[in-house]
Each structure stands twice: as C-alpha cells, then as structure tokens.
C-alpha cells in the first residue's frame, strides 16, 4: 500500500532522514520504533506532505505522492494524527470532528461517520458541545484519532498515541487501534513504547539517526536481544 524508497528529508539544514526505505502492506499495523530524534515524526510529516522530500520516492497504491500537497494526500486516503494531539482547543469536539471530514464531499454521511467514531470512543459522545481544550489528555488523544478517522482514511498515521497517558488509558487506546485496524484501516504507528507497539504490530522498523537499522515481524522483534536491551528495558 505504502512503499518508501531511499527517502531523504531535511529539518532546516539538518538531515533528518538519510535514505529510509520501508513498506506498509495493506491491512497491517506497522510499528516505527526508535529513540527521540531518530526521525520517526519527520518520516510521518514527509509522508503527509508537511515536509518536502529532498530525495527518494513515496508511493501510495502505486502512485508517487512525494511531491503532493497535504490536502491532496488527505484526499487520497492518508490521514495523520499528529504527535501531541494538536486538537483545535477553541473549537468544540463536534467542530473538531467536522474539521476532520473537511475534504469530504459527501457530507450527508456525517452522522454515520460520527456513529462510527462513538463506537470506538464512547467517551466523546457526551462531550460534543464542549471545547476541545477543556478535555482531559486521554479524551484529547481519542479526539485526535477520531478526527483523523473522519476523513475515512485507508491509511492512518499515528504519532505517539500513548504520550503522556496513564497505563490504563494507554491500554484502552491500543485496544481501539487494533479495532480500527480490524475495520479495514491500515496503520503506520510511531511509538516510543516499543513493548506496546510490537504487541499489536504485524511488522516493525527500528530507526536510528535517520536510518532503518533493523526490521522484522513484530513477533521476531519482540524476541530480538538488541530490541529487548535498548527498547524493552530488559
């Protein structure tokens, strides 16, 4: 579904991606692991068109998208739930969700889409009229994912959904990510918590200073001594 080949990108003058190649097959959850500053967030931002690709290619369903604008990419079915949630604090929960479906022409289905979101995140339903800035961290994370789902993506980019959340909430969010994936959405998941990510991931890539240093199935990576040592805290 998504195929990235020798991708290079710069953050200012610093090379943040130095030739990354990876593949996300349809229907899977692919985890992107690595320390802070390894280039995980940069990779997601380059895929969604927020940062230009300096070299290399990004192909989505066989179509080159490395020169496309963010709105073209959302229209193609790639949705990005960014690190730190980035909800619109002065907009209501409902408005945030509507903004998620901004590019959609068929607004009649809004209600059906909302029902789908409430199915995943029942906690949002009683808060529709509340300003997003007044939600708790967990609720904001749910809203950020829900908002990203409102464009009906085929590929969902999730950046650090567990950031700053308590263990119970994190578990809940990850259960929901599995649900979303089971409903037919392919997921590319950036996560610092390697243990959690590899538990649900079909496949995993490990990034270090802008390069892929290791990739394998989720199950194999969980057993990998290096991973255990650096990321799983054994």
């Amino acid at each position, binding site marked *: 579904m998504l195929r990235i080949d020798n991708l290079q990108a710069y953050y200012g003058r610093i090379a943040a991606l130095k030739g990354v190649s990876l593949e996300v097959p349809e229907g899977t959850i692919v985890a992107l692991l690595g320390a802070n500053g390894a280039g995980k967030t940069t990779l997601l931002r380059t895929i969604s068109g927020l940062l230009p690709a300096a070299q290399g290619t990004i192909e989505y369903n066989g179509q080159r998208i490395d020169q496309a604008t*963010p709105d073209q990419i959302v229209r193609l079915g790639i949705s*990005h739930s960014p690190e730190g949630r980035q909800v619109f604090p002065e907009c209501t929960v409902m408005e945030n969700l509507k*903004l998620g479906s*901004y*590019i959609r022409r068929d607004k009649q289905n809004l209600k059906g889409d909302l029902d789908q979101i409430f199915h995943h995140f029942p906690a949002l339903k009683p808060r529709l009229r509340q300003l997003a800035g007044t939600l708790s961290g967990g609720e904001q994370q749910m809203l950020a994912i829900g908002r*990203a789902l409102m464009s009906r993506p085929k590929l969902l980019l999730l950046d650090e959904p567990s950031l700053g959340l308590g263990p119970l909430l994190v578990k809940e969010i990850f259960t929901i990510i599995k649900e979303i994936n089971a409903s037919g959405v392919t997921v590319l998941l950036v996560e610092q918590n390697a243990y959690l990510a590899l538990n649900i991931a079909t496949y995993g890539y490990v990034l270090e200073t802008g390069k892929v240093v290791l990739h394998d199935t989720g199950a194999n990576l969980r057993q990998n001594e290096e991973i255990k040592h650096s990321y799983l805290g054994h």
Partner: protein
Amino acid sequence: MGYFPMVLHSTLNATAEGFDWITLGRNIINGFSFGSIYALFALGLVLIHKSSDVVNFGHGEMAMFFSYIGLSLMGLLLGVNISKPAAELPSQLGWEVFLPALLGTLLFAALMGLGIERFLLRPLAKASVLSQVMVTIGIGTLLYGLASWLWKAEPRAYPRIEAVSGPPFQLGELALTREDLTFLSVAIVMASGLFLFFRYTMVGIALRAIAQNPFAARLMGINVGRLNGLAWAMALMLAALAGMLAAPKLQLEPGMMADVAVKSFAAAVLGGINSLSGALLGGLLIGIIDNLAGFYLPDGLRATIAFLIIVAVLTIKPHGLLGKPLPKKV
C-alpha cells in the same frame, strides 16, 4: 500612516455652556454613528488577524483607495471623469448609480485582498509577523501616494445616497439621521453575519482552525493559503463598504482615513483582537467616548482620552473586553 491623525469634524459645535441631556444624547448618537464605522474597520482587522495573525496597518489607506474607486465608478456611470480637477458629481445619488458602483468597488477590494495575500504575504509566510506587518504598511503608503497622484490631494465632496439623506427621525428633541441608522445597522448586520459565518459554515470553522493551529489545519486537508486569501478578500470588502459609507461624512482626500484607522485599531484591541463581537463593541465604545471627550473636554485632550481608557481597560483585561487569550501556536 506617516501623518498624525487629524481631528474629525463633529457635526456639533462645542459652544454650549453647561450640561443638558439633549446635548449628551446628540453626542452619543453621533458617537454611535462614527463608532459603527470604526466597528466595520475593526471587524476587518479582526478577520485578518484571526486567520493569519497579521495586523493590517494599511487598512485605512485601503479603505480610502476604495472610496476613490467607488467615486470613479460613479463618475463612469454618470459620464464624469473624476480625475479632472473641475469634475463634480451631484451631492446625492440614487441606488441605480450607488449600487453598481458599490458592487464594482467590492469586487475590486476582493481581488486586491486575494492579490495581497497571494503575492505579497504568502511568500513571507515563514518570516516574522513583523515583516508581514511592514508589508501592510508599505501597501498603505503606496496607495496613499497613488491616490494623491491619480486624484490629486485636494479634499472633495462625496455623494450621499439619496434614500438615506431624507429627513431625520425625531426622538423627542433628538434627531436621528437616516445616515446614522444606516451606519449602525450595517455594522450590526455585518458583525452578526460574520459571527454566523464563523460559527456555522465549514469554511468559517476552518478559518478558526487555522488561527488556532495552522499545522493541524493543514493535516485536515485545509488549504491554508486559499482560506487566508478569502479572509483578506472579506476584510477588504468590509473596508470598501465602510469607506464608501463614511466618505460623505469625512470628505474625500488621501488622508481621510488616518484618524478612523487609528481609532479602529484601538477599537479592535479594546474589544479583543480575536473577537468579532468585541470589534463591534469596541468600535461603538470608542466612537461614543471620543465624541463625548471631543465635546466636554478641552481640545488637546480629545485624541488622548480614548487611548487612556484603552490602556486602563487593558491593564485589567489584557486580552480586551471580549477577547480570549491567544492560543499558543505550535
């Protein structure tokens, strides 16, 4: 903006000694009238600031330029070339001339707004807000020079709309002119229209989203540049409307909007630079305070009193009367 605001001529003379309620009432009505113009200006400033963080310091000159464009179009319809010094238009015009001229001017203003955003500000999107503000000052100065050159600097009369120049309404001893009422209702209709636009339309909600978090707005697939252009177009159309309505009251000349612009900035800040209802409230308050100060206080204090009050309000409510703390941009 390189010239200091001149004092607007009040329709009342400050000759009366002592205090009476009728005079106070007249001053308040007159304040409402000017305040409505400030409010229309301030609405445009808020609109631009809400979407792109920029304060348009050329707003007054743009409105002045649009008034001249409007006059040229009226001249065109009546077969008078207004750039000739001797050219004169009738002092009152019917809708059949005013309306097409207004529509043409609104179109011109919208195109200018789109052009400014697309070709002057968007290339500077990554520069500091200060650089962008400098560009707006530059545009204002350019338009000032252009107007002085094209239409000469001498003040000239501006035609009134016939329908709103009829006899005033009498409220006891207070006269309420149709013009005053027109200003006030236009300001209120525009403020409420914008409020509904921002509250209920997808484009309006998207404009608010851009103001709160442009980064996330792009992730939603919102074309930030195009919508900022729309905000500029709408703001300048408001300026054109305000300019053409106010010009008969102010007399047309290149410096005519300097004072209005300064007071409108004050109005926008007083109301809260990100609040539309604040712009309306701020505009009306400034209009009233300024008129009362002009009447009851010694001449030199008029220009200062409105600003003293603003400073006082801002120390208590730093975000303005109805403003909210600006969200932190990421």
